[in-house]
């Protein structure tokens, strides 16, 4: 299937129901507890709710404001997940010997 950039119509990165379920999950007592147990603070969940409303808004009126707000919010989430300097170098290819059968293994070949 041909997929040139711009030819596929834009849609929200997640289904709107997913934003709502993330919001509900974020606000749950269990999650608040886990967040406090991990970070010592209560989580902030407002962004999920805003994203849900923007998602529904875009579905109804296809406005650029809602679309840009959603994209901005998700880009911040991605940046937050990448906010560290890796200790190791990522591979370009998987390890050569991952699939090598066991009885053919040579010890300490890497």
């Amino acid at each position, binding site marked *: 299937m041909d997929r040139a950039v711009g030819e596929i119509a834009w849609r929200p990165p997640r289904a709107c129901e997913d934003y709502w379920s993330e919001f509900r999950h974020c606000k749950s007592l269990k999650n608040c507890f886990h967040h406090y147990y991990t970070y010592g603070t209560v989580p902030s969940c407002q962004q999920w709710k805003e994203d849900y409303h923007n998602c529904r808004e875009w579905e109804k009126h296809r406005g650029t404001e809602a679309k840009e707000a959603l994209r901005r919010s998700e880009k911040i989430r991605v940046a937050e*997940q990448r906010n560290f300097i890796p*200790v190791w*170098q990522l591979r370009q290819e998987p390890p050569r010997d991952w699939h090598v059968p066991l009885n053919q293994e040579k010890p300490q070949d890497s």
Partner: protein
Amino acid sequence: MDQTKQEEEYGYDLFPERKPGEHKKTSIAESLFTFNHKCQVMLQFAVETSPYAKLLLSAMKSSGCKVFKDRHFSCEDCDGTVSGGFDAASSQIVLCQNNIHQQSHMNRVVTHELIHAFDHCRAHVDWFNNFRHLACSEIRAANLSGDCSFTNEVARFNFGLKRHHQECVRGRALRSILAVRKISRAEAEKIVDEVFDSCFNDHAPFGRIPHSKRDAKFAYRDYMNRDRYYANL
């Protein structure tokens, strides 16, 4: 290099069945009525039903390291109280059949070791010579596998609440390093401190710290949705 020295230096003495070059064969009786059989059954259940395991297996497949149960998992008897390990030399996850007796424990060990395997698959991890790499993978495994959940810690009589998760991750990473490498506690602590911030915040492939099955299910949902997600950022 002297084989015994090598075995001790890299923690292989904890896994006495891992002799290089040998492939163990089991009898039918052994297959059906032993810890080995129970281990195999629990492993099968874990890979089929645990959202943590399913996500890791998908991520590894996408990275070119498809996991085959018979090739990449091995149920063995181990020394002491160790529950499992990842042997980078043979690309195998070792499950200690004599020390894992509950399904929830199996799920956790499988997740923990799959995280090591995932790191091995996606990065140039120097397991044998670089302690920072080893520490990083142990921090990630303790952080993301559920090892340090509140209930697990309480069961170990480690009572703590505010930010206790991080303390637990540090402690367990330290323990894991000291179990398989001959370095001093002070040295190990220093290494863990150096890499902690980076590795604690590396949540791949989950995208979050999965504190519960619900978190893991949501993470799995996100992973399955990743094509749409990145295409529409």
